[in-house]
């Protein structure tokens, strides 16, 4: 337990614990939709500004001379209780924003990779990313209207997924379906630590 976190502030306010879950997948795989379905507030958007000097240079003045680009980030919030909040962050889709992922992934509980069976290869980079960094993830196969239904096993084969990685069908628009994906992730995280969460 983080003892600092449960300390009371001078103002008598408790600081909640925030858990970060990433929602990844290719462009159009349903990341924003899933965040919207789950968030208790309208999905919020914030921007991160990319600066040319942000990576690999040592700009001592801290003053930016180069051009900047803004990247929108969707996020949503689920309040579990007064002391516990889950934040969902949709990862930026473009590959050139990988370094933003590093910041998002720092301290993350885990990730949901959304797969669209019409463009399965789009989620390969996300899977590689989380595998390489040892970040627990589950794959949610978003069942789009009109998309061909594949058997889960053929999708697993196509993605060359580790047998331990949960693969679940979902409808990113549906809150109940989306929440089952998150539950499978949290249970997967617990299993990885050898502490299975008992079924309630």
């Amino acid at each position, binding site marked *: 337990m983080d003892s600092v976190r449960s300390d009371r502030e001078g103002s008598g306010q408790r600081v909640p614990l925030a858990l970060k879950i990433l929602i990844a997948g290719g462009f159009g795989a349903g990341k924003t939709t899933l965040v919207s379905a789950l968030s208790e507030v309208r999905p919020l958007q914030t921007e991160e500004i990319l600066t040319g000097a942000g990576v690999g240079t040592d700009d001592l003045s801290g003053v930016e001379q180069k051009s*900047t680009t803004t990247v929108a980030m969707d996020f949503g919030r689920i309040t579990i209780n007064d002391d516990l909040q*889950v934040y969902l962050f949709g990862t930026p889709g473009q590959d050139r924003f990988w370094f933003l992922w590093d910041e998002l992934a720092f301290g993350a509980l885990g990730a949901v990779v959304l797969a669209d069976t019409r463009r399965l290869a789009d989620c390969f980079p996300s899977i590689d990313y989380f595998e390489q960094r040892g970040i627990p993830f589950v794959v949610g196969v978003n069942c789009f209207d009109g998309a061909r239904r594949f058997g889960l096993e053929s999708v697993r084969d196509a993605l060359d997924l580790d047998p331990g990685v949960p693969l679940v069908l979902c409808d990113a628009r549906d809150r109940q379906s989306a929440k089952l994906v998150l539950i499978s992730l949290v249970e997967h995280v617990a299993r990885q630590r050898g502490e299975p969460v008992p079924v309630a």
Partner: protein
Amino acid sequence: MRAESPGPQHEWLDAAAGPVVRPYTLTGGRVRPAVDGFDLVAFVLAAPAADASGQPGLQPEHRQLVELARRPVAVADLAADLDLAVGVVRVLLGDLLARGLVAVHQPPTAAHLPDDNILKAVVNGLRAL
């Protein structure tokens, strides 16, 4: 007195034209906060008697941040509430931290992931949604 002081709304600009003020103008061109470590889910809490109004060198946005942080609020929420880029909010928060106007509570790092009880609480909370 300058008569042509621009108002907050420019009807001749639409969203596609981008912000009137370039993002880091607000921070005086600084792109990095004085202190590192404002995670997106770090919580910011104003110091109990924090009063940013009398402080020279602070922008209205600094004061807004202090007001929003009267209750613990995550960095990502602050950025969304103020409609500012996260990078800009981090620089402004760094100024406030340096003046002792806010405290920052970092989330646990990966090495201190939440224990089993917390994971159970999350699963039960999600099931109840």
